[in-house]
């Protein structure tokens, strides 16, 4: 059955009041024992130093992409690695005065472990490193925190410079290696070029072009040759059908033809006219004249012939002439012959050239593979070399950045201070815990008892839970004597509580003045 909380509280109050003496006894035992523990609890002092890892200075945007500032992603973890190293820890041991008693090596190691457990290094956010040192002695806590922060900054700078120097050295080595490789490849390429002058890019097409041109030229020339043969043949045919000499019409002949012509005209005229007709007379006279001129001519020729026979000289009849057509054909035939000879010579020449080109093409193909191999290697090496060269320059700048304390900088943001107030669990906490536990434990016990105990404390369980009417609820009835007893009891309890608080105050005072 679920009881209203108010009722539970009321009954709890009644129980607590009824068991006030039990509560007091438990309270005094618990609180005094807690205070006793608190009085001997050692004081702890904490000194804090904060280091800022500043990697976002003014240079960064300026050097963007050129220089790599040393980046540390987890400053806290990094710092722990550096600070808990032997170099810094031994320095701390010395500075904080742990070695004053000349401890042995083993003891030193133990002290170191002990110090490490008391130092808390944590990264706050992205950039801050917090060094917290705890110690019973405030001064020692302060010295430890102070020295740690100083040494960390120093060590951080050193390691940063080392890092960038190492990076630079590495890249430089790589650059040199590639430079050597590149030189070797370059030399090989040069040698190959000098051995294979044809091995140039594009030679291949040039050669094939040439071969094609030659082939066409040969074809064309052959065609022409054949044509020329045909022409020669036809010319010879014509030549055999033509007379070498023609007889030209002599002056004698000219006269005769003229006479015949005139005779014809005379005949025509005689048909119409009489012999006396003037024209016929003039024609007759003309014929006469012409006849006499012809006779003179014949006579002259015969005399010349005779004289030539007599003198033995050659006689050339004027009437005999060379045939001009024959002459022309003969000329053409001979020029055709010449042309044939020329064409044939050209063909053979061109064939020779073609063969040469073929040979050259063959040579070029072999060399090209070697060349592309060499060129490829050369290009790759060159690219890497140039990239490395660029990187080296950047590394050089980074190195000088770090050397001049630019880039990532560790600075002491908040220097360690001598702690004045102890931290951790202090006496006031024990006092508070004493009061809280001293009261809550017995009251809690009573509450638990109430919950566990099956005996009925709530009339509602009877009335609602068991359906039996509750006629009355009767509270305890105290006599005057009881009341007086109660008053005395309460007074004694009050004195008891005041006494306990006085003990609290006294122990607290002793603690604060350092007597405890």
């Amino acid at each position, binding site marked *: 059955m679920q009881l209203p909380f108010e009722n539970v509280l*009321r009954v709890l*109050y*009644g*129980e607590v*009041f*009824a068991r006030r003496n039990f509560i007091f006894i438990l309270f005094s035992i618990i609180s005094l024992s807690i205070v006793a523990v608190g009085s001997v609890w050692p004081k702890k002092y904490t000194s804090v130093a904060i280091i800022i890892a500043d990697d976002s200075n003014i240079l960064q945007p300026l050097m963007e992409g050129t220089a790599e500032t040393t980046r540390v992603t987890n400053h806290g973890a990094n710092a722990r690695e550096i600070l808990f190293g032997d170099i810094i820890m031994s320095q701390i041991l010395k500075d904080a005065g742990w070695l004053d008693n000349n401890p042995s090596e083993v003891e030193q190691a133990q002290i170191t472990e002990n110090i490490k457990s008391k130092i808390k290094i944590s990264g706050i956010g992205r950039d801050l490193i917090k060094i917290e040192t705890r110690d019973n002695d405030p001064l020692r806590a302060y010295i430890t925190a102070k020295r740690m922060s100083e040494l960390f900054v120093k060590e951080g700078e050193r390691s940063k410079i080392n890092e960038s120097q190492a990076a630079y050295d590495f890249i430089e080595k790589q650059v040199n290696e590639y430079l050597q490789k590149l030189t070797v490849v370059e030399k090989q390429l040069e040698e190959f070029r000098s051995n294979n002058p044809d091995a140039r890019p594009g030679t291949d097409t040039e050669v094939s072009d040439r071969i094609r041109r030659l082939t066409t030229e040969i074809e064309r020339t052959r065609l022409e040759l054949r044509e020329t043969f045909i022409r020669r043949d036809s010319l010879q045919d014509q030549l055999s059908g033509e007379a070498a000499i023609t007889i030209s019409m002599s002056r004698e002949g000219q006269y005769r033809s003229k006479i015949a012509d005139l005779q014809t005209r005379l005949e025509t005229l005689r048909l119409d006219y009489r012999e006396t007709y003037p024209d016929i007379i003039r024609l007759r006279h003309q014929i006469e004249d012409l006849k006499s001129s012809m006779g003179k001519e014949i006579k002259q020729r015969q005399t010349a012939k005779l004289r030539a026979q007599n003198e033995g000289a050659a006689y050339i009849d004027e009437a005999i002439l060379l045939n001009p057509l024959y002459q022309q054909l003969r000329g053409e035939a001979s020029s055709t012959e010449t042309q044939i000879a020329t064409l044939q010579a050209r063909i053979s020449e061109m064939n020779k050239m073609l063969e040469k080109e073929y040979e050259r093409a063959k040579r070029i193909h072999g060399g090209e593979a070697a060349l592309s191999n060499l060129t490829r290697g050369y290009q790759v090496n060159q690219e890497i070399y140039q990239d490395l060269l660029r990187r080296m320059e950047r590394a050089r700048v980074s190195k000088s950045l770090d050397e001049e304390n630019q880039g990532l900088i560790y600075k002491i943001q908040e220097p360690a201070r001598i702690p004045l107030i102890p931290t951790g669990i202090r006496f006031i906490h024990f006092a508070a815990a004493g009061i809280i536990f001293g009261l809550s434990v017995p009251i809690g016990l009573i509450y638990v008892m109430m919950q566990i*105990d*099956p*005996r*009925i*404390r709530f*009339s509602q*369980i*009877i*009335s609602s*839970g*068991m359906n*039996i*009417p*509750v*006629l*009355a*609820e*009767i*509270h*305890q*009835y*105290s*006599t*005057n*004597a009881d009341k007086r007893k*109660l*008053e005395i009891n309460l007074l004694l309890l009050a004195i008891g509580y005041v006494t306990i608080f006085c003990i609290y105050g006294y122990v607290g005072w002793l603690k604060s003045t350092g007597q405890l």
Partner: protein
Amino acid sequence: MSKIEEALNKAKQSRNSNGTDLGVIKSDSSSIEQNGLNHLAPKKIQTQDISTVNEIALMDNGDILDNKELSELKIIHSEMDDEKVANTYRDLRTKLLQKSQGKNFIAMVTSCVDGQDSAMTSLNISTAFSFDERKTSLLIDCNLNNPKLDSLLNMETDKGLTDYMENESIEVDTIMHKTGIKRLKMIPAGMSREIATEYFTSLRMRKLMDGLLARYSDRYIFLESPPITESADTRILAELCDYVILVVPYGTSTENKIKDAVEAIGSEKLLGVVFTDIPERPRFSMSKLFKF
């Protein structure tokens, strides 16, 4: 302590010495209540029942305990500092009267556990009935093995119920004792220690009860009995009475124990539970603090 003892002794002495005085009411301490009730009582009743009231008023109450003495005995009275307890008993009285519809009755008060709670409750209920000057109440200690009422009332009695049962020559009047509380008489357990269960089943017992109930119509009889779960007597007694009131003291009885008791009583006679002995919760007020 000495003061209280003194007061008690004084009360005892005066009661013993004045045991046989007739009808003289020492009205010094009780007059207020009487007057108050006279004022409050309706006039009709006053005129009708005037004879009864007179009769009761003339009843021999013996030496009356004053309020201080009552307080020491943890018996309620009308002028208590803390009226809550007295009012609770008054309410209980009203409930019983409502139940009986005004008729007188015999009610047994028993408990689930051993202890003084049922005796204390029966004493205070009967006292509450006696507040009303038109009613008288009679308390019978039926816890023969372990009678408690004598010590609660700080009395020394001679003859009681067992004596009456054993010796037929003893009259009822001789076993009825004055309690020092007005209108409340008591029959103690008695001196005889030869106790048998048969007493309660005997005809004489039944006759006694009937006689006591019939004699005065305004007499209310309460039987103080041992825990019902532990005594067969109590179950037999339950047969004799009209109502049973079960006393459950705070933080003593489990649900099963109460169930057993209720079963033993039987639902028709059980009037209900009185939840007693609830721890007092102090109410701190500024005035009290200053006084302190």
